[in-house]
């Protein structure tokens, strides 16, 4: 006879990172399903468009500003279609929205729900709380990005959609890094203020500003000098699908992300936590 499995075994939820992922489990599954579904729908439509000359004519008839904003060049090829329908804004901004909503909650939510007293009664430094929470964000955003890469790269060819792995990976990495940077900013604003709603509001506004500045700069000349302040410019506006990896730009965004994290740690450590 096998010994009965004790219902009182020790918990598997151990580290702060593990708990953050466990608490976000259903959220992660929901976002992953939504994003995968979106990609599948986009792939399913592609065979209709692929090599269809009337679509090319239609798009060439669009005004040039529109073609630029939605990156409509070579729409009927695999890379062009993905660039427009998936990477021009929907996938990177959805991934970023997930990262911002969760990042803003990771540190500030614990304070708003008043569980922070219990957490910081244990011998962990506030710096470790910020770091371990951020690691959960990193794992979550990476998991979603990997799921997208697999769906588009493996299932895409079944729908006649072929893009090189390098271009696809560069576009996924660009989206991933853009999302991670702003997710980290949300975490930092939350850590600095203890207010989740404020963190979400401020960070979402900055995401949209970043996107708009980089995108509209292709049309509006006076925006051109400031577009290098936009993280979108360094990750997505440079067309990673067509031009591949831009190591210096990715490194720059990674450094900015690191600075957000340092600011989160510093700001969280120096203030009173709310009751």
């Amino acid at each position, binding site marked *: 006879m096998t010994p009965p499995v004790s*219902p*009182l075994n*020790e*918990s*598997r*939820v*151990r*580290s*702060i990172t*593990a*708990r953050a992922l*466990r*608490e976000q489990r259903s959220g992660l599954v929901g976002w992953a399903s939504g994003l995968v579904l979106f990609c599948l729908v986009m792939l399913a439509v592609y065979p209709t468009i692929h090599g269809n000359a009337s679509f090319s004519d239609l798009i060439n008839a669009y005004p040039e500003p529109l073609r630029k904003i939605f990156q409509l060049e070579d729409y009927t090829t695999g890379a062009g279609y993905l660039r427009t329908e998936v990477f021009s804004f929907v996938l990177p901004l959805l991934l970023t929205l997930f990262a911002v909503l969760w990042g803003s909650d990771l540190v500030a939510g614990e304070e708003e*729900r*008043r*569980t*922070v*007293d*219990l*957490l*910081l*009664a*244990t*011998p*962990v*430094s506030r710096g470790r709380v910020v770091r371990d929470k951020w690691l959960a964000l990193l794992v979550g955003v990476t998991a979603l990005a990997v799921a997208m890469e697999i769906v588009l790269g493996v299932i895409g060819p079944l729908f006649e959609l072929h893009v090189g792995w390098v271009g696809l990976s560069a576009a996924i990495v660009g989206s991933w890094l853009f999302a991670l940077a702003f997710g980290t900013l949300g975490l930092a604003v939350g850590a600095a203020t203890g207010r989740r709603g404020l963190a979400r509001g401020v960070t979402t506004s900055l995401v949209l500003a970043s996107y708009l500045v980089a995108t509209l700069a292709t049309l509006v000349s006076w925006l051109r000098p400031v577009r290098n302040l936009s993280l979108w410019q360094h990750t997505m506006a440079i067309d990673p699908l067509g031009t591949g990896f831009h190591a210096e730009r990715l490194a720059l965004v990674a450094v900015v992300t690191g600075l957000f994290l340092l600011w989160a740690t510093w700001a969280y450590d120096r203030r*009173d*936590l709310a*009751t």
Partner: protein
Amino acid sequence: MLQTAPHQSSAPTREPVVRLEAVTKLYRGGGGVRDLTLTIEPGEIFGFLGPNGAGKTTTIRLLLDLIRPSQGTIRLFGLDARRDSVAIRRRVGYLPGDLALYERLSARDVLGHLAHLRGDVAWAEVLALAEQLDLDLQRPIRTLSRGNRQKVGIVAALMGRPDLLVLDEPTSGLDPLIQRQVHELLRAAAGEGRTVFLSSHILSEVAEVADRVGLIRAGELAAVERVADLRQRAAHLIDVRYDHEPDRDALLRLPGVQRCDVSGHEAHLEVAGDLRGAVGAIAASDMTDLSVREPTLEELFLAFYDYDPSR
């Protein structure tokens, strides 16, 4: 754990477990604590008593470094509350007054998580505490009653046998039977030389377990008394019955008698200090019945400090 030898424990150089020196923490919206000075010695149960909003929770959260004082110094185990916070928290178990738990987890996951972060907590000890308090670890937190949530918090504070227990209103929401269990656990901890700092707005609770009581009112420490001293200093109440109307003036002349009320054949006296003179004289008189009782701590505080829990 190392046991401190008796001759060392009485050495004057021994660090108090908690030392607050002129600590001030004020909030913009009012509230907080002002110029708080307090020391707590190893092995004692210190009761922190005061009405809601008097500054009990502020003081406790200062000890845990969740908030920082505007002025003054806070040391625990001789360590700086802010700089050495992690080292201090290794030795402290804390039950927040406004306890909130991770709603999406089970009681087991919450305690497992906290035990992991605390380090060296034997899971068997968690199970034993849960059983002692009659807590079902399987249930998700969101389905637990207020009392059961409080039990989760108490287990979290007690597990790992910390040297200092800081408990903010520990028995709130618990039924009387479990309250007694908790009090026993606290006495056992003090018996092992561990220190307990507990807050309450209920005098009888503090009186039941504490060695010393600090009374905080409107952010200021109004009094710190040993419970035993308070009792000793207190006037005793003597009720005497006669088969005739007693002579009030004669009773008032007895040694130590501060007050005397006569109603019918009965006299009620308040006697301070040594009782022997008054009781001896009354016993030798033609009385029919005599009872001496001690005032409750509640009556004492009411008498000494005009303590009103509703204020």
